[in-house]
């Protein structure tokens, strides 16, 4: 994949998002509402107990987590129904006649989408939250750099997850219910609502078998300082292993799906 081409497609996808400005405004309000609900919920919960520390989180730490995991999640916004829609209306044919990798074009499209959401939604939401809530982020340059690397790895995992879910359309065409199911799984098991530390014991073996925690939870714990820098390195290693595993699944599914593909509408 030619990097110049990749960047061109990121920019096309970014520009497309700019045309939907009203969406973006609603998105900011919506994102902030989530942050507000979760932080209020944590405050109410913590006020019920005498102890100030739960599962290793003080109130400040859990509020910080709630704000930042939301910031990462919003930055990772992508349209998970792109492949599904392209199969539904048959326009996928027009992409397959180009000498480009379908996977990387999809990734580029996602990156453009996400960059826009990061700039237009994450930045204002974080800025407002810093003023409104009691947030503590340990500021170390090295930690910040590792956080960015871990976020990129997490982002690739989310993109692969959506690619795999989208490819199901090659078999079933109508996959909207699958996408809802995937969304629920992703939001919960990635630690998008509650940090993994708060999960009941019986769920933990399942969580450890799934890649979701490496998408949002671990990158966030690096930034808020719950993971030491040494731990952060092993987190990134685990993320890389998951990228290889999910990459292999993407390849296998793409190979098998091609044979199943039907172009709708002639």
């Amino acid at each position: 994949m030619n990097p110049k081409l990749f960047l061109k497609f990121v920019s096309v996808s970014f520009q497309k998002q700019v045309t939907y400005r009203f969406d973006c405004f609603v998105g900011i309000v919506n994102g902030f509402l989530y942050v507000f609900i979760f932080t209020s919920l944590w405050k109410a919960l913590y006020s019920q107990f005498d102890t100030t520390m739960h599962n290793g989180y003080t109130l400040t730490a859990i509020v910080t987590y709630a704000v930042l995991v939301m910031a990462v999640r919003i930055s990772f916004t992508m349209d998970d129904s792109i492949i599904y829609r392209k199969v539904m209306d048959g326009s996928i044919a027009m992409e397959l006649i180009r000498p480009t990798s379908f996977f990387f074009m999809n990734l580029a499209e996602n990156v453009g989408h996400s960059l826009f959401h990061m700039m237009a939604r994450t930045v204002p939401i974080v800025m407002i939250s810093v003023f409104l809530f009691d947030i503590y982020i340990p500021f170390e340059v090295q930690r910040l750099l590792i956080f960015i690397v871990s976020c990129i790895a997490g982002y690739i995992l989310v993109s692969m997850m959506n690619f795999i879910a989208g490819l199901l359309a090659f078999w079933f065409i109508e996959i909207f219910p699958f996408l809802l199911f995937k969304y629920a799984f992703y939001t919960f098991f990635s630690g998008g609502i509650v940090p993994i530390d708060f999960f009941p014991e019986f769920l933990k073996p399942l969580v450890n078998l799934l890649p979701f925690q490496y998408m949002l939870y671990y990158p966030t714990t690096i930034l808020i300082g719950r993971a030491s820098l040494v731990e952060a390195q092993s987190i990134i290693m685990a993320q890389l292993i998951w990228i290889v595993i999910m990459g292999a699944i993407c390849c296998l599914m793409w190979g098998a799906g091609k044979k199943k593909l039907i172009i709708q509408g002639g």
Partner: protein
Amino acid sequence: MQQGNIAIEVKGLSKDFDVSESGKGFSGKLKALFHRRRKIITAVDAIDFEINRGEFVGYVGENGAGKSTTIKMLTGILVPTSGSAEVNGIIPFKERKKNAAKIGVVFGQRTQLWWDLPVRESFDLLRVIFRVSQPDFNSQIKKLDKALGLDPLMNMPVRKLSLGQRMRCDIAASLIHNPPVLFLDEPTIGLDVLAKESIRNFLTEINRDEGTTIILTTHDMNDIEQLCKRLIILEEGKIMYDGETELLKQKFIHEKVIEVEFHDDGNVIQGIPGVTVVREQGCKTWLTFDNDNYGIGDVIGTIASRYEIKDISVNEPSVESIIRNIYNTRVTRATPSEESRNK
């Protein structure tokens, strides 16, 4: 025949689609939830053909005959159920990307341009995708602009183009990398006469000047008559005619229609050998004659000498009427002579 002379080679190519049927109405749909009747439809059924470099081939058939499915297999979009195909010596469904770099594709019902971008930017993206150098790109665009009149469209967003304008841009887009093989799937669908004409002229030009091999599917038989020397007719996934377009006429046309107009009505044409009157209306009479055994000159000469006529015209049956005839009568598979194919 030399190996390097073959642009497309297809052997025993088949594509089956698995279609699951659900019953009628609510109860039928409910049953389908638990038990689906599966049905296999063979869209393309073991077809063979070879297309040489520089040929201009019409690929026709009724709706659902398997034309588009064949094109989609040759462009690497669909993977065949069985059989083999090579385009420029590349197997499209094994090396889709490599194949895509050497072909141009237009699907008349779709666009490969970016809906929200101006045409110019779409072209520029394709330049990067196909790795065309800037000087090559500039000269190609210049050439395409001259032939297709793109200049006034260049800064317009694709969604604002009319169908004819969009089609011109789509054809230009498919040729940015100057591919040796061009697939056109109904490129003239829904276009007015002028737009069709300009596209036809352009296609003739690139076929002649660049030696581009062109495979054209269409329902417009005028396209075929004006453009395609060779015709492949597909029926229910099988090839039922593969040969010269002209030869199709000779093979299937044994009659010509003559329209005669007299100064006044009441004239009755009779007693001319080989001629049958089809219809009489006022001053006009329509005749058919057997053109295998009688010459057109003799027939007209005889009519003109015996009757006082105001006007006379001979109507060549169109390829369309021939093909309509073929579809209707389901003529048994006709194989053209080797000689005609290798011309």
